[in-house]
């Protein structure tokens, strides 16, 4: 079986399903029909299933986890976003969150689709067991920050909007709290990303910290979320400023991934 062709086909199907899911979520918000919400979640779930199969095909073809270049990480990042969203949805039943998270997923997948998809064997520096732990935790961490940003968007919209549509959105206070908890989880994961990266860098490059642009921007992102958590915990920062901070944090996450790779090349630039 040609797993690469299979992966490409499944990737395209998942991409289409994510677009359909995003549109369905928007129509759900506009029409206030509960059934459309269920449909959007079902399509997201189906898309996630197909996406997982696509990643499985790539894993079989390459014989390793898909974490070694920009395409593979963007693809895994998308998978992490949808996974985090689905977990939050099934635990808290916040259907409308999908309208703000699924577009992030399909945009990231769209970005992945523009990148070269060749399956290349791992270069010597990437041949390490730390690859799975370091990049795996990054996928989960970035996915969590994306969902937190989606919840913060909802808060900001709920805060500004006085129409009846607001009733379809989850309780703003719940979004605010949940965004905080998800950021706490993402922050813990990001800390793990940085620590595992440092341990790996020491065995590969001799120094655990070298101020490479990717390392530095991970630290900047970590600092932004550190400030958020401190203000939230110690100063009772809630609501609108906290929501804006969560969005800014996610912009830093995106820059750390896409911006640094394309604008600030360093030893982490695996294309």
């Amino acid at each position, binding site marked *: 079986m040609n797993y690469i062709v299979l992966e490409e086909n499944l990737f395209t199907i998942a991409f289409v399903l994510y677009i359909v899911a995003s549109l369905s979520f928007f129509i759900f918000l506009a029409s206030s029909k509960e059934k459309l919400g269920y449909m959007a979640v079902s399509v997201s779930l189906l898309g996630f299933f197909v996406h997982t199969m696509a990643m499985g095909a790539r894993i079989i073809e390459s014989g390793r986890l898909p974490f070694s270049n920009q395409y593979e990480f963007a693809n895994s990042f998308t998978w992490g976003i949808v996974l985090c969203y689905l977990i939050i949805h099934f635990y*808290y039943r916040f259907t409308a969150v999908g309208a703000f998270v699924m577009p992030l997923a399909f945009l990231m997948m769209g970005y992945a689709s523009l990148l070269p998809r060749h399956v*290349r*064997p791992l*270069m*010597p*520096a990437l*041949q*390490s067991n730390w690859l799975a732990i370091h990049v795996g935790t990054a996928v989960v961490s970035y996915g969590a920050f994306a969902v937190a940003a989606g919840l913060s968007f909802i808060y900001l919209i709920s805060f500004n909007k006085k129409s009846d549509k607001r009733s379809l959105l989850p309780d703003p*206070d*719940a979004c605010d*709290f*949940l965004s*905080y*908890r998800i950021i*706490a*989880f993402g*922050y*813990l994961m990001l*800390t*793990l990303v940085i*620590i595992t990266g*440092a*341990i*790996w860098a*020491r*065995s*590969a*490059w*001799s*120094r*655990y*910290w070298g*101020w490479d*642009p990717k390392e*530095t*921007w991970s*630290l*900047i992102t970590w*600092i*932004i979320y*550190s*400030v958020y958590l*401190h*203000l939230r*915990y*110690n*100063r009772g920062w809630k609501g609108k400023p906290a929501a804006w901070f969560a969005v800014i944090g996610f912009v830093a996450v995106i820059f750390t991934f896409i911006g*640094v790779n394309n604008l*600030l090349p360093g030893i982490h630039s695996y294309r």
Partner: protein
Amino acid sequence: MISRIKRWLFSLQFGIFLLILMAVYVTFGTLLPQNLPDAFYVENYAWNTLVLLLGFNKAYSSWIFRVIMVLFLINLSGCTLKMIPSLQRRFHHNYFPSPTLNAENLWPDHATLATMLPLLKKKGFTVSESPDEPGTYRAVRHRFGVFGPTITHIGIITIILSSFVGNYFAQEGFFNLMPGETASFHEENFSVSLSDFYITHREDGSVEQYYSDLMVLENDIPIKEETIWVNKPLRHNGMMLYQTSFGWASKLQIRETASGDLVQESYMRDEETIFFQPAHLNIQLFGYYPDFQIGMDGMPLTMTQEKRNPHYAVVLYHFGEFVDSFIMNPDQRFTYLDYEISFPDSVMYTGLIFRKDYGYYAVLLGCLFLLAGLMLAFYFYPKYIYIRDGVLHAISRQNSWGFSMWLKRQMSQFNKKEGDIQ
């Protein structure tokens, strides 16, 4: 005045200010090329005065960055110490926070105290009757979690201090070895000899891995042999040796044309020049190309690092004046004056980094503290429940909403089982 300065120095606001300042400062470090001569910044940046004044050209080692880090360490240490008395009070078994005035009552419809208290004990809560209010119960879990932020801060302080100290005393350097060559670490009382260096390739020609077969010697006696590759360094007496790079060393032979006698033989690395005194010749090896091709720009290049079509680019100078340049293969030789010059073969040499970092394990310990502290702060934070017949309040400073949600889920089983939870 001093107490005001101290209060400000150890305040959260100052800590937040320093964190933001640090983030902004290192951002410039990522945007500007680092550690280049001042002239580069003067030529390329209109705001070069600011760049040089504020040390953005060496952002991670400038005095401003160090001052920020030292102030941050002072601030964090002060904040951490300042918190300890209040944490001790909150850790004490008598401490129990009061519910807020508008706290939601989570008491389920069919519950009784007799069923509620065993359930909470089963969930890991320590339940006790309030000494001040008979009939009122207090349930507490994860009281030790109050130390989460403190442990996190200790972890960060340990990381920063250890990396400062470690980097200050670290020994680090780079060296090349050809097979058979030895490098000595006199202070460490050992030397390292390269037995072999080789590259393995995949079917598509891409490099699979770089290997150096090393032998460690103490007082010229072999102690151990080890093969290292990228991600697998050698460790000896605290010194780490890393596979970092490689290159080619090409054998230069100079013979007298008339007699054929070999008058000089030595190895040259790319771009190296050798002076041959008898003929006043400077021989420069411009480059060695194991898989030679001429590129689009007319310059020689190598397609792979495999010896498929080896060629040498050589430039000759006589009394400092350019004479000629040649592209030659290992079987060719060129004659100048009374001498024949050839490059019959090349061998690969390995490039190794050595580093001894005294602070690494302390940094690692700091990382463990940091992770443990975050786990405590985010997940094992103190959870309090205020219970009176018909009244149930969830109290948590860190995650009041999440804890209430969790407690509601636990209480929902009372409704399902109509009060019987056994």
